[in-house]
């Protein structure tokens, strides 16, 4: 059974720690990065199915991650999580091909729903919210 590969990028360690388990319980294979530059290298090395990324990070921002991810794999689903959500940012993300966006703080169940929706759209039938 093929599992969806998920890359989680946030410069705050607590975010990755909390969400990794949540997504693994769904049946996803999860990689976590705090350094967006290293995450970018990993994306170019391995095309992920789903990428969950913060926006405001040092050196490389979430929009650059989004663009790189779509360039490597146009079908990749990119979910934006941000503490600085605005209507303009939301529109920019959607225009650049983001799958969804949510403002921080959010409940882990909100992210679970988005990941399940993304995985289902990509044809992963064995993934579901528990």
């Amino acid at each position, binding site marked *: 059974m093929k599992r969806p590969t998920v890359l989680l990028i946030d410069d705050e360690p607590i975010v990755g720690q909390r969400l990794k388990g949540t997504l693994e319980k769904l049946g996803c294979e999860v990689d976590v990065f705090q350094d967006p530059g290293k995450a970018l290298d990993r994306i170019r090395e391995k095309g992920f199915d789903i990428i969950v990324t913060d926006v405001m990070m040092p050196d490389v921002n979430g929009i650059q991650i989004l663009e790189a991810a779509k360039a490597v794999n146009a079908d990749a689903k990119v979910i934006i999580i941000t503490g600085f959500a605005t*209507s303009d940012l*939301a529109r920019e993300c*959607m*225009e650049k091909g983001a799958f969804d966006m949510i403002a921080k703080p959010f409940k882990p169940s909100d992210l679970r729903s988005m990941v399940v929706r993304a995985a289902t759209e990509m044809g992963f039938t064995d993934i579901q919210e528990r």
Partner: protein
Amino acid sequence: MSIVAIISRHGRESAAIAGFTASRLGYRLVLMEDLVKSAAQRFQISEADLFRALKEPPVLQRLNTKPLRKHIALLEQTLCELMAGNQMVFCGYLGYPIFHEISHVLKVLVLAHPAAEAHPTTPPETTSSNGRGQVRKGRWFQRVYNARLDDPNLYDLTLNLDHMSTEEAADVIVNTLGQQRFRPMTYSMNCMGNLELACQVKSTIVDQVPDVEVKAHDGTVYIYAKAFKRGNRRKALQIKESVMHMEGVNYVEVIGEKELFEGM
């Protein structure tokens, strides 16, 4: 669940565009009259009172502006409720701040033929009744939202009917709505929920606290008003108590305008 908001002082022309757009998209059409009817039914208020609130903006010179503020708040609450879960084309001049907050709302300004357009500075006696209505809507918008209705910077799309028919205008709207940026997402849907709660709270307390502004985020409600300055703590507590019991409210923060700048 995208939404189109057509804002214009030209009721007849923009209603025609809204009708064509709604029918092409298969969306629900909501005109100002429909909004008033829904609000009247929902809150058991006379339609005439609600129409009055849309004609007479609350101004300081008038002695009793509370009913007008209340009715505008109820109309905005109804608008939020109609938007929730609906693909909708709205046409009117109410609700601009609500639309501004939601990224999947396509905001359209419709300008009509210059011959039919009355400038806000034109004396009312020199314009037709249609022209007077247009001037009145502009003044209402300015006083209620502190913005110029015809300011293109407030909109995603400006359509000038001097250069196209109402049907062509509808085509432009339908094509523009196809852009990815107007696609609903979790964030924008949550914004709608937050706005709906903020409007509910505002319409509940606006007759007790004039000039109140309300924001909501995930069940936390922030109430801003000059009335909550230090000397009026009791009123702030009363308001907090009454709002705490409302459905969907987890926490209430009451903020006097002055306090925002304290400690800076």
